[in-house]
C-alpha cells in the first residue's frame, strides 16, 4: 500500500515543479469535464490557454488585456504574500481595494472640472492611504486587543461594500446621471484618467506599480532586515522575537503594506479600466488575489507569473464561453481545479510517497 512519509526537509525540486504539475493536471481534469459537457476538450484548452495570446483575430486585443486583468491581481497578491509569510492573514483585501477606489475617486472628483497634472498623483496617494487605513482597523484591533485578523478583515469587506453603495448613490453620484447611481466617469476627465501609457498595450500606471511592487518585494525579502523578520515570524515566531522582531509592529507593517497596495489597485482600476464608482464596482480581485498569492508560492516572481496565468484563464475562459458555448460555471470550476490541484500536489513538497508491503513498519 501507499504511505506518506514526511521529508526531512521540503523538496526544492517539488516546490518548483508543483505549479506546473498542477496546471497540467487541471488541463487533464478540465478537459474531461469539458468532454462530459459535450465540447471538444482540446479546442477548449486551446481557446483558454492559446487563443488569447496567439489567435490572429483576438490576440492583438486580448494580449494587452492580460496586463489589465493581471495588474491589480499581482499588486494585491504581493502585499498579501508578505503578511501570509509572517502568518498574518489579511483576507479583506477586497474591502481595502474598494476603499482605495472610493478615496482616490473622491479626491479626483473634488477637483472636477479643473485640469491639472497634480490631480492624478493626489488620487494615487489618497487611494493608497484609504486602503492602508482600512487595513489598520484589523491590524490595531489585533495588536491592542488580540482579535482575530482573519474575521475582522473579512467583515470589513462587507462594510466597505455598503459604503461603496452609499457613495454610488449619494456623495459621489454624478449630478448629470439623471437620478441613476454611479459617479462621473473618470475616463472622461483627462486629469484624473489613468490612461494607457502606450496606446494599445494595456500598460497603465497600475501595471507599472505592480511590476515595481514585485521588484521591491523581491529585494525586501532577500536583502532587508524586515524581510528576514517576516520570513522568520512565519516559520519560527519565537526565534523571530529573539532576532529582534516586534510582533505588533510586524502585524501593523504587513497589514499596512497589503492594505496600501490593495487600495492602490482599487484606485488604478477606478481611474482606468472601470472608470467610475458604481454599486458593484468591485469584482472580486481582492479574493482572487489570495489564490494568486498561493499559486505563486508567496514568491514575488511566482506571483507575477501566477497573476498572468490567472488572467489568462479569465480571458481565455471568456473566449471559450462565447466561441464554444461553455457555461460560465464550468470556467469557474476550471479555475477552482487549479487551486485544488496546486494544494493537493503541494503535499509532495513536504511528504513523499512510499510503497509499503503489508506487515512492514
Amino acid at each position, binding site marked *: 500500500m501507499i504511505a506518506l512519509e514526511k521529508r526531512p526537509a521540503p523538496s526544492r525540486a517539488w516546490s518548483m515543479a508543483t505549479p506546473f504539475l498542477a496546471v497540467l493536471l487541471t488541463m487533464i481534469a478540465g478537459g474531461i469535464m469539458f468532454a462530459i459537457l459535450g465540447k471538444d476538450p482540446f479546442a477548449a484548452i486551446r481557446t483558454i490557454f492559446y487563443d488569447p495570446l496567439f489567435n490572429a*483575430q483576438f490576440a492583438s*486585443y486580448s494580449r494587452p488585456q492580460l496586463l*489589465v486583468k493581471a495588474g491589480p491581481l499581482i499588486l494585491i497578491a504581493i502585499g498579501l504574500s508578505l503578511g501570509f509569510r509572517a502568518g498574518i492573514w489579511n483576507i479583506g483585501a477586497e474591502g481595502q481595494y474598494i476603499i482605495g477606489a472610493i478615496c482616490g475617486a473622491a479626491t479626483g472628483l473634488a477637483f472636477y472640472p479643473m485640469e491639472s497634472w497634480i490631480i492624478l498623483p493626489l488620487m494615487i496617494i489618497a487611494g493608497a492611504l484609504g486602503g492602508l487605513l482600512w487595513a489598520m482597523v484589523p491590524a490595531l484591533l489585533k495588536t491592542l486587543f488580540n482579535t482575530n485578523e482573519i474575521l475582522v478583515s473579512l467583515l470589513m469587506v462587507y462594510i466597505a461594500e455598503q459604503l461603496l*453603495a*452609499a457613495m454610488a448613490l449619494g456623495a459621489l453620484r454624478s449630478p448629470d446621471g439623471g437620478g*441613476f447611481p454611479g459617479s462621473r466617469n473618470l*475616463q472622461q476627465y483627462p486629469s484624473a484618467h489613468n490612461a494607457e501609457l502606450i496606446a494599445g498595450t494595456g500598460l497603465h500606471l497600475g501595471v507599472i506599480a505592480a511590476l515595481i511592487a514585485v521588484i521591491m518585494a523581491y529585494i525586501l525579502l532577500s536583502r532587508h532586515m524586515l524581510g528576514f523578520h517576516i520570513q522568520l515570524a512565519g516559520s519560527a515566531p519565537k526565534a523571530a522575537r529573539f532576532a529582534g522582531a516586534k510582533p505588533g509592529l510586524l502585524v501593523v507593517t504587513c497589514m499596512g503594506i497589503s492594505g496600501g497596495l490593495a487600495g492602490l489597485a482599487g484606485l488604478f482600476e477606478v481611474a482606468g479600466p472601470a472608470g467610475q464608482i458604481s454599486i458593484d464596482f468591485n469584482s472580486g480581485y481582492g479574493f482572487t488575489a489570495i489564490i494568486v498569492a498561493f499559486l505563486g508560492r508567496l514568491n514575488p516572481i511566482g506571483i507575477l507569473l501566477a497573476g498572468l496565468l490567472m488572467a489568462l484563464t479569465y480571458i481565455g475562459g471568456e473566449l471559450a464561453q462565447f466561441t464554444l458555448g461553455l457555461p*460560465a460555471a464550468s470556467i469557474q470550476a476550471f479555475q477552482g481545479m487549479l487551486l485544488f490541484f496546486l494544494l493537493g500536489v503541494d503535499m509532495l513538497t513536504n511528504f513523499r510517497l512510499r510503497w509499503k508491503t503489508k506487515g512492514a513498519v
Partner: protein
Amino acid sequence: MKLHSILTGAALALGLAASGAMAQDKTKVGFIYVGPVGDFGWSYEHNEGRLAVEEAFGDSVETVFQESVPEGADAERVMTQMALSGADLIFSTSFGYMDPTLNVAAKFPDVKFEHATGFKRADNVSTYSARFYEGRAVIGHIAGKMTETNTVGYIASFPIPEVIRGINSAYIHAKKVNPDVEFKVVWVYTWFDPAKEADAANALIEQGADVIMQHTDSTAPMTIAEEKGIVAFGQASDMKNFGPTAQLTAIIDDWAPYYVSRVKAVMDGTWESTDTWDGIEPGMVAFAEMSDKIPADVRAEAEQMIEDIKSGAYHPFSGPLNKQDGSAWLAEGETADDGTLAGMNFYVEGLEGEIPQ
C-alpha cells in the same frame, strides 16, 4: 489606440463589406447576460429571446452569448472580444453595462449595439426597455386584495429608477384597494444572489409579510414563499415550477419579438439608433397564468386593468398623486410623463422608509 482602432475599424468595415457581398454569410448576434441563463428569471428570458432569433432566422444567423458577466471593465472586454469575433449586433442586457457599451460602440462604429434599460445612446447604440411598471400595477392590485396581514414584502435590487418605479406602481395600486396596506422593502444590492434573496424573503416573512414581490432575478424568494405557505409573484419569467401553489402570477418579460425585429433590421440594412419602451400592449410585458387562489372578482378586476392599460384608457401613474414628503406630484386627471418616469428617484406618498442615498 488611435491607429489600432482605425485599423480594427477598417478591418471590420472590410469584413462587413465582404459579408454584404456574399449573401450566404451569417449575421452574427451576440448577447451578454448579467446572470446565468439558468436563473429562470431575467437572463433566462433574454436567452429565450436569443433562441427565438435562432428559430426565426435559422441558418442565416449565428448567435453567441456570455452569461454572468460582471458590470464594469469585464463587460467592456467581453463586448470587445465579441465585436472582434465578427458580431454584427450585440445586445447588452443589464443597466450596469451602459458606459462599457458606449465605450465599445465608439471603437466599432460598424457594429450595432442594443443596451437594455439604459439611457445613453449613440449612432450605433440603441436602448430598449419594457414598461414593467404596468405589470407591477396589476400585481399590486392583486397583492392589496390578497394580503391578510396587510403587509407586502418587496425584495428590491438596486435603487435605480426602474426599481423605484416598480415599487411605486405596485404600492399605489395595492393602496387603492386596501388603504391599510404597508410595504416593507429590502434592498439586496444584487440582481442575482439566491442566498441573499432567500434571506431577504425570510426576513420579510418574519416581519409579517404574507405576500412577496421581488425585483431580483433568482427563483429563491418564490421557493421560500412555497416553503412558508404564503404567496408571491414571479419576476421576469414564469416561476410556477418553483412555487406551484405560491405563485399568484408572474410578470413575464418577452423580448423575443423585439430581438427578432432588430436582427431583421440589421439584415435588411434598416437598423437605426432608437429608444424603445414597450409595455403590455405590444406584448413586451406579459403575465403568467393567474392562480386559482385569486378570487374570481379580483381576477376579473386585474384582467380589466390589463385591458385598460393595453387600450391606453388607464395609465398606472394617474393623478391625484403626491410624493412621499406630501408635496404634490400629479394633479387630478394628470398622468406622469415618460421623462419623469425614466428618472424616478422618489417614493409616492404613503410608502415608508427611505430610498437609500
